[in-house]
């Protein structure tokens, strides 16, 4: 994304090119997020008694409890196992999300806020130059 990179560095470049690239990018992101939402991501508690499945958007889709494991659990332990299974499913979703983002950006995930390339420009405007 040549124009995106130019603008990100604070350089004025071809606006039409930038809009074309960002449009394409927005479409790719929407598509990837849409596909992710259709996926089912599963997780289970450590004993494997409770299994949870969440959608790619994080919505709980199925929760199954293996009756054989129930004998070893009282009501408090069962509640904890359910919670653990859901957390595990969300963690699987997080991993999948990171993967999707990495595929999109073709670079390792990076969430550091880049320095504002317009800091100098804004300082000049405020100083009145």
């Amino acid at each position, binding site marked *: *994304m040549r*124009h*995106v*990179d*130019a*603008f*990100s560095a*604070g350089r*004025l470049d071809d*606006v*039409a090119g*930038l*809009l074309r*690239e*960002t*449009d394409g*990018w*927005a479409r790719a*992101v*929407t598509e990837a*997020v849409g596909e*992710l939402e259709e996926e089912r991501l599963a997780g289970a508690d450590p004993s494997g008694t409770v299994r949870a499945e969440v959608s*790619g*958007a*994080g919505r709980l889709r199925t929760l199954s409890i293996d009756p054989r494991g129930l004998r070893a659990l009282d009501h408090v332990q069962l509640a904890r196992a359910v919670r653990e299974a859901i957390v595990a499913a*969300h*963690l699987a*979703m*997080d991993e999948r*999300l*990171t993967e999707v*983002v990495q595929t*999109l*950006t073709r670079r390792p*995930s*990076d*969430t*550091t*806020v*880049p320095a*504002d*390339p*317009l800091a100098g*420009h*804004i300082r000049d*405007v*405020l100083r*009145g130059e």
Partner: protein
Amino acid sequence: MPTGEPPKLVLPGQTAPTANQQLHIANAGGTVQRTVTVAPKRTDPGFYKRLITQLNPLRQSTRAAMAISGIGVAALALDVAATLNLGNPFLFYDRREQWKEMSGLLEGTRSDLWRSYFDDISPNWKGDAVEKLQEYVRFNVNGLYSQLGKVSDEMSGAMHGQYKEVLEYDLSVFGLYATSAPMLRSVAAMSAHPVGKVALMTQVGLFMSATGNLIKQFADVYNSYEGDLNKLELKLNDLRGAFFRSGNPAMGARDLHLTPNIEDPAMMDDYWVPVSRDAS
């Protein structure tokens, strides 16, 4: 009125006012009749600076949210494009007023000259000077000044259009950031959880399409004004033809001056014949 002395003419161009000065309007006798104060340079009311001052913190939190979303690379570029395209509407307002003043001044000066010829000179004098002056007023001053006035009017109109568009764009960008920044900030705060992260990605996507639309609209407006300015440039090229030989400044200016003979005391009797002398 005729005293035997040729009237002193104050020609437009000789008293070009510079900013913040007084302009003396003299009658044919050279006595100052009224004084016009040329408005001092307008000062920027500081809208643009205030806009940037208030926008910048909103930009910073929006940029942070974009980066956290992991897919912010294009949104960050749009942020730069949207901010760089913000303009100071005062610049266009100032030019609009300048062209308007110029148009008024041109018309005023043209009228003054026209009236002083037909009120003071043509009823009272005969001789070559009257003809030379009539030629000068009719062909050199009247036609050229009207053309210059027309271009100034259109320039003022174009500048007003630009002023309005720049102001609207500035306010739209500010409005977009003012509404999106708090939402993006709170969604970004929840993004430690994967569900929050998906929500943030969606919000950044929405912000991106809104900013992209704004930039696109502004680019369209910009292009249409380019067209208007191009038409004005063509008109200015036409005017060049009136002022320069073959319309080419390199070939020198056309001679639009009055003949100096008109003020030559030796030729006064040919040039300035009072109407009353003939009658007596």
